[in-house]
């Protein structure tokens, strides 16, 4: 079983979880070990820059999933945290001469501040309005980035140097940088897992399932939502800053609404509310983009088709559907 059954049903549809199974920790450990092993051997089989792209977007999708999967809030503006942190990190490294780890921290700090402001506004509305508010605020941030000086306008911030990590470890070699990115990704992934399975995470899920009841139980729902939003924004910022370090570039496409759409797509395809789903989804979508990059505009069409197909045919996502199959097979085996 990939994830707990309760998580696979935890789509925003809020379907009542029929089969709640205790445990699942051992399964998680096995799967996590498998992911680490795959991450260790992957650069010997695939192009490291491609793998780093997958890891950055996987983290982005995991951060996004923290909101949609566990609080039931669909943010259509996460590109502003991803792209905003990418700009701050790029500016810090290139112009201020920061080392990569400080650049990433600066990007995360910026995303946290921006996330606090946006979250504070956006959690005043629920459901469909929340999605529209975040989208509109992200578009406002996009125009800000387009007009302000330090982002470089249409050119973006280019040729950001790969400075040594902590001033000691050189990062110019893609293989070396890959393992740094892998370590950062795994740390953030474990942090998200810990958040989701903490008492705090349980309250988040309670809000997702039945907000009025959570309020009546005395939880300050607004605060929980805001903290979850800021956490999600900060981790999305970490992903954006890591992407800047890898590609030595921060540009307008990082803050555009298409980027917000992409992270929604990755999470939807992989499985909303599953632990490993966003990672799988990011792998699928990034591979698809690489594979299809030769056919130009049809990438957009393909993404749209995948969106429609995912909503109509496999709403639980790849991981969610597999988990549901396994659960059903086990239930049959037990009866």
């Amino acid at each position, binding site marked *: 079983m990939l994830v707990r059954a309760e998580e696979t049903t935890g789509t925003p549809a809020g379907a009542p979880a029929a089969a709640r199974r205790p445990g699942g920790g051992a399964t998680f450990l096995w799967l996590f070990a498998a992911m680490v092993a795959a991450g260790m051997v992957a650069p010997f089989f695939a192009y490291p820059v491609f793998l780093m792209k997958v890891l950055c977007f996987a983290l982005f999708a995991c951060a996004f999933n923290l909101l949609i999967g566990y609080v039931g809030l669909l943010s259509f503006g996460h590109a502003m945290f991803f792209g905003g942190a990418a700009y701050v990190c790029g500016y810090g490294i290139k112009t201020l001469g920061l080392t990569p780890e400080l650049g990433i921290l600066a990007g995360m700090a910026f995303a946290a501040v921006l996330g606090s402001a946006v979250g504070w506004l956006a959690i005043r509305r629920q459901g469909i309005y929340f999605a529209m508010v975040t989208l509109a605020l992200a578009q406002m941030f996009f125009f800000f980035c387009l007009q302000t000086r330090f982002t470089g306008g249409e050119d973006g911030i280019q040729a950001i140097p790969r400075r040594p990590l902590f001033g000691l470890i050189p990062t110019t070699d893609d293989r070396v940088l890959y393992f740094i990115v892998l370590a950062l990704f795994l740390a953030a992934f474990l942090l998200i897992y810990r958040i989701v399975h903490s008492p705090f995470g349980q309250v988040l899920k309670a809000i997702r399932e039945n907000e009025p009841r959570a309020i009546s139980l005395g939880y300050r729902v607004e605060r929980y939502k805001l903290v979850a939003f800021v956490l999600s924004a900060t981790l999305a910022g970490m992903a954006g800053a890591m992407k800047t370090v890898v590609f030595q570039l921060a540009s307008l496409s990082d803050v555009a609404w298409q980027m917000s759409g992409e992270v929604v797509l990755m999470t939807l395809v992989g499985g909303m509310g599953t632990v490993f789903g966003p990672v799988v989804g990011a792998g699928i979508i990034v591979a698809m983009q690489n594979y299809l990059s030769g056919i130009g505009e049809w990438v957009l*069409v393909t993404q749209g088709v995948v*969106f429609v197909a*995912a909503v109509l045919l496999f709403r639980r996502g790849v991981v969610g559907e597999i988990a549901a199959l396994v659960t059903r097979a086990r239930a049959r085996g037990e009866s």
Partner: protein
Amino acid sequence: MFELIGVPPAVLFGQLLLGLINGAFYAILSLGLAVIFGLLNVINFAHGAQYMMGAFAAWMLLTFAGIPYWAALVVAPVLVGATGIVVERLLLSRIYHLDHLYGLLLTFGLALILEGVFRSQFGSGGQPYPNPLPGGQNLGFMFLPNYRAWVVVLSLAVCLATWFMIERTKLGSYLRAATERPDLVQAFGVNVPRMITLTYGFGVGLAALAGVLAAPIYQVSPLMGSNLIIVVFAVVVIGGMGSILGSIVTGFGLGLIEGLTKVFYPEASNTVVFVIMAIVLLIKPAGLFGTAK
């Protein structure tokens, strides 16, 4: 020439007129979104793409079939509305029982498909559409181009006609009843699924009509819808989707404010609607005409 607060009146009124026209598009599009959401519980993310399709339909009718603007004004919305009906029957009708968010995701995918197809066929650049009403009137304080005046008058008429149809006719009362309690209306013998289908077609047709109106003013480009729809979402958040007149007033009002911003502080003209949205969220989170749920 006298000056008004340091701005030549021709510039001021010119921008106000352009703001009024943009406001007309905001009003028509948010009206369509509100009508669709009321009955289908789907936020139609493809609305911007369907507006773009309306403009392209007019352009293609003229370029490939020689059908002039005045005929396209009727034919293009009907054609695009028909594609909306197909979409509703094939796709949207399968997801009504799900959370609203899935409707948003599905129509977002649809918008990507439409935009991608048109971009691959016509490129990202714009296609010019000839002005069907050249010339204009000199009003003394400003020059009023005939076509722009026509757009403002027609969109106001369309908005008010829609309001009248929904709030004052028998068909509209069925529609409002079905928005509240579709099951009861169905029990009274009204074919609610067909009403839903036609409503979606109507909303899409409205978006396409706005697209036809926009074609001679802006260039016909595959990207014209995606940027507009995000502003329209902000308009919907500001106005709330509860009231038809509310969306009309909010749409025109925000267009005017945007026009004024272009005169006095052009750097903020792209973002002023979003700033107003943030302020409205702070003061009245349910929206100006919305009711808190």
